[in-house]
């Protein structure tokens, strides 16, 4: 945890039923630009249909309220477009914080990516 904020970036992996997003680095103020760029791309590509987004937090060592604010904006914006967000790799402590701010109403937390993809495949085929 030493030092200033580590660089943050978002790596997107395509999946037939979902967009998988690996979050890498501290989710703090420095995540503002990458998350804004991601949202612009998302709105251009996904605004006309519903879909699923999976956020992978295993590469995020530090989250503060500035990062949570960005996350809320991201998740709410995509939810308004009819998308459903899932997340994994979140420590119990950060799950507790997400629950406090109501994030878990918009983002379902699972233990791992496999469990999420199974759920998405079930939702997509129903």
């Amino acid at each position, binding site marked *: 945890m030493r030092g*200033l904020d580590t660089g943050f970036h978002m790596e997107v992996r395509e999946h037939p039923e979902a967009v998988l997003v690996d979050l890498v680095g501290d989710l*703090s103020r420095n995540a503002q630009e990458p998350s804004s760029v991601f949202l612009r791309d998302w709105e251009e590509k996904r605004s006309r249909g519903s879909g699923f987004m999976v956020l992978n937090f295993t590469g995020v060592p530090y989250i503060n*309220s500035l990062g949570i604010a960005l996350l809320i904006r991201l998740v709410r914006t995509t939810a308004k477009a009819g998308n459903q967000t899932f997340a994994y790799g979140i420590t119990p402590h950060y799950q507790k*914080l997400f629950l406090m701010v109501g994030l878990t109403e918009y983002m379902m937390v699972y233990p791992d990516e496999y469990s999420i993809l199974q759920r998405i495949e079930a939702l997509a085929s129903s």
Partner: protein
Amino acid sequence: METRVPFAAKWVLSSEYGQEKNVLSEISAIIGRLDPLSTRLDDMLTAVAEACLNAFEHGNRLNINLPVRVRMKVDEISYLFHISDEGEGFNSPKREAGSPEGEEEFRGWGLLFIEALADRWSYGRSRGKFYIEMEFKRSG
């Protein structure tokens, strides 16, 4: 660093995002030596981080020339953290727990976290500085 109870440490930070992480790293190491099995470590780190961020942003208006001071005291009973800045204090209430309603303003969770995570917290002015003080029981 020798770490025995009672223990005290202090840090002076410039008001810049990310500076809090240096303190968090040292606090984590200290608590690791004093209470290696502590279940409160993450709560303390988040509360201190949020108090520092409030001090940087709302207290010192991100003026890197204005200091934020962090003091840590540990005794047999508790951990005490005292974070002070050069500002006037709160100008907005904390957010309430629950659904993040509101289109534009997704901020203000710091005090909510501090209130929820600390066993006791208070704020005020002392010697011309605004401070937040937070206590965590060691047995908690």
